[in-house]
């Protein structure tokens, strides 16, 4: 590099910049390449680029490049396609500018609430993406952690009260969401085969042409009514220890339209799941870690994220923005319980009841009160971490751990 001429030093618009304390990170969202630094003079240059009037490009005196660390970091920027640095000549003497990655969310809740003639509830049905209905709560199984599973993932849940939704209540919900862009509708219980209006429910689902999925514990699948669900997909939940090596699985798998969800709490559960997968040739399955209160080490080893995990695959700019505005795990989900109460997340307080509020009002309530959908990494220690918004949104695991970060980055 020529120290006698001056340069335009700039950052590309697809580069995300994060700075916490004396650490800074530049992330190329196209290629997933990162540059981390604690060199104060270099960070000062990047800060200067991010001043509004600079729009990502600054004038750099050639003499600045005499500092080896600066020169190396600029070189690294160029090599990693994070930025550019070129000599100013007669033909390019006008300072270039970039449209920098500033998030503009037109229907941002804060923007809408500041406008007198706008409402947060505008077009809100478009936010309903994922609906889980627990039609009943009765079940004869005695799963050890029955009350806890659905706090971590979609799962059936029984209760001794034996509440259930009427078909009228369910159909009323379906009428209201006819024009929602629903991507997933899950029907579960309790044990759905103990739901007395199951046949009626299936007819209603067909009437509204919903591609519903039924969530069933594998021990409840040995039921004469299982065949009623032939036209529907099923999520089959397998908890450990597995009884009788899940001997009803072959017949379940044979009928098709099945995804198996293995709920594991330990390495040995995982080994058993592997055995079952191989034994029965299961191709469509998911392994879900379950925190039972006593398996923290298992989570630390298998679930907690490291820096390498966070950066394992490129994180698009859109995702970085999403992580700043919404919870990518929770957004768009509603859970209706057998007593009609509705939650945006089962670890969060209820947002209402289908008997008292319309679905539109419930969605509006969640957007305003934010029990789950807009829960982001805006609390300590994530607020001090340079990966704050590169890291995935908080999940149910953070909720049940009662800890904001499940990672090894910020202990």
């Amino acid at each position, binding site marked *: 590099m020529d120290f006698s001429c001056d340069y335009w030093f700039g950052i590309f618009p697809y580069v995300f910049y994060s700075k916490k304390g004396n650490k800074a990170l530049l992330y190329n969202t196209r290629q997933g390449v990162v540059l981390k630094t604690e060199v104060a003079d270099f960070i000062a240059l990047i800060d200067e680029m991010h001043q509004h009037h600079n729009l990502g490009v600054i004038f750099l005196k050639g003499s600045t490049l005499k500092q080896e660390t600066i020169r190396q970091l600029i070189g690294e920027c160029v090599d990693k396609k994070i930025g550019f640095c070129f000599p100013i000549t007669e033909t390019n003497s006008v300072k270039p*500018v970039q449209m920098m990655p500033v998030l503009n969310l037109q229907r941002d809740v804060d923007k809408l609430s500041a406008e007198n003639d706008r409402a947060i*509830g*505008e077009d809100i049905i478009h936010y309903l993406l994922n609906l889980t209905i627990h039609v009943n709560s009765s079940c004869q199984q005695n799963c050890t952690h029955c009350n806890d599973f659905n706090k971590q993932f979609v799962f059936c849940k029984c209760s001794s009260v034996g509440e259930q939704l009427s078909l009228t209540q369910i159909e009323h919900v379906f009428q209201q969401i006819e024009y929602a862009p629903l991507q997933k509708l899950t029907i579960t219980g309790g044990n759905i085969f103990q739901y007395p209006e199951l046949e009626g429910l299936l007819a209603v689902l067909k009437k509204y042409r919903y591609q519903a999925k039924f969530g069933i514990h594998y021990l409840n699948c040995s039921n004469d009514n299982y065949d009623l669900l032939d036209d529907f997909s099923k999520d089959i939940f397998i908890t450990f220890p597995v009884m009788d090596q899940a001997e009803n699985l072959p017949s379940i798998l044979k009928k098709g339209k099945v995804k198996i969800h293995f709920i594991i709490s330990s390495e040995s559960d995982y080994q058993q799941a592997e055995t079952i997968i191989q034994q029965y040739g299961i191709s469509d399955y998911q392994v879900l870690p379950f925190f039972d209160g006593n398996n923290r080490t298992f989570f630390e080893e298998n679930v907690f994220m490291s820096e390498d995990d966070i950066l394992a695959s490129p994180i698009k700019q859109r995702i970085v923005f999403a992580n700043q505005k919404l919870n990518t795990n929770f957004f768009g989900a509603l859970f209706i319980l057998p007593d009609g109460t509705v939650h945006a997340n089962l670890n969060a307080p209820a947002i209402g009841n289908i008997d008292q509020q319309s679905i539109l009002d419930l969605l509006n309530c969640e957007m305003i009160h934010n029990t789950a959908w807009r829960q982001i990494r805006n609390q300590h220690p994530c607020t001090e971490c340079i990966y704050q918004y590169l890291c995935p949104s908080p999940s149910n695991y953070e909720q049940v751990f009662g800890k904001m970060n499940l990672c090894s980055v910020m202990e």
Partner: protein
Amino acid sequence: MDKLVQYITPDLIKYQLANLSQLVFEVTDACNLHCKYCGFGEFYGNYEVREDKNLSIEKALKLIDYLVEFWNTNQNASARRNVYISFYGGEPLLNMPFIKAIVNHVEELDCKQRFFTFSMTTNALLLSKNMDYLVEKDFNLLISLDGDAENTAYRVDHNQQPAFDRIVKNVEAIRQAYPDYFENKVRFNSVLHNKNSVEQIYRFFKANYNKIPSIGEVNTMGIKPEMQEQFRNMYQNVNESLSQSEHYREIERDMFISSASYQSLCTFIHQYSGFVYHDYTDLLFDKKAAQKIPSGTCIPFSKKMYVTVNGKILPCERIGHQFALGDITDQEVVLDFDAIFNRYNTYLSKITNQCSKCSNTKACTQCIFYLEDLEAKPVCEGFLNEEDFQTYYRSQMAFLAENPDAYHRIMEEIVVE
């Protein structure tokens, strides 16, 4: 022949009605002014004959009730939505009984998912007389005034007497009586022509009311052939006028999004920065593949519905009445969704081919109803080939380089919907 593509469907049109955000009534075609450049005046031939008619209250109420049925269906997507009820003319204040009847009716509607904002465009001649009511109902008021007395010379009454003094007297009256309302709810709109300039308009409103007006050009559509020359004499382009101002940068910066250049930059940034998202689901999903209808034409009723004094229903007040999409008869509201869908798809298909070759489809604002020869072989005047587009792109980036602070202002402050 261009292939007929189904860009819109009858169901999509119904959906727009169920989620309508503005209903505009042409309250009357009568006006107590006779402005030279009026869209219903001597220059134009694309509107219904003006007969000093009032829009029937019964028809308007029928339409509102018809729309309420849509607003109460499951196609309504909103828990809460504002609907603008707008009164347009002619001069709407000449028909206050209509306005009061509509306001009363709207206030009594059984439609809990809607709230309403009333708005009006007026020449202000009858403002003093009606201001108490307008303030009570919290109207958004847009007053037409072209600058100082000389600038406003085309705004004359039927005796060719200038209206300027009467307008500003009434404006002063409302400002004195209701200063907060004047500050928050009153805006001005000026028409640019050969008796004013952007600078003169800007300075007049800044000095007298500390407000920045919106400035529009005289409508270029539907000019009678025999009036072309006179029209050309009167017409002035906003950008050219601004660039001739002595302190045009300062004016432009202060006008910000009210100026054509910043508006254009806003469109450019919104379409080409890649960092503008409509709603939360846009952040969740990559929607690049979503089909866009050709041109910058709105899906009918996605922005508003306009009703003429004769009960014709249009998608906008700025397009010729020959493009009416429906009618309110004494018996019913007639909107044939299949016919509308066919008509739009036919028009859109005529320009699909041009749009497919245009390099500026993302930021297109060209409405097909402004294209000449739409029924036969429309040619898009906004078409940009790659070279033109690069010129456009460079000019916008150059403007941004000159005004870098505008970027964050546009990204952080401007809500375009």
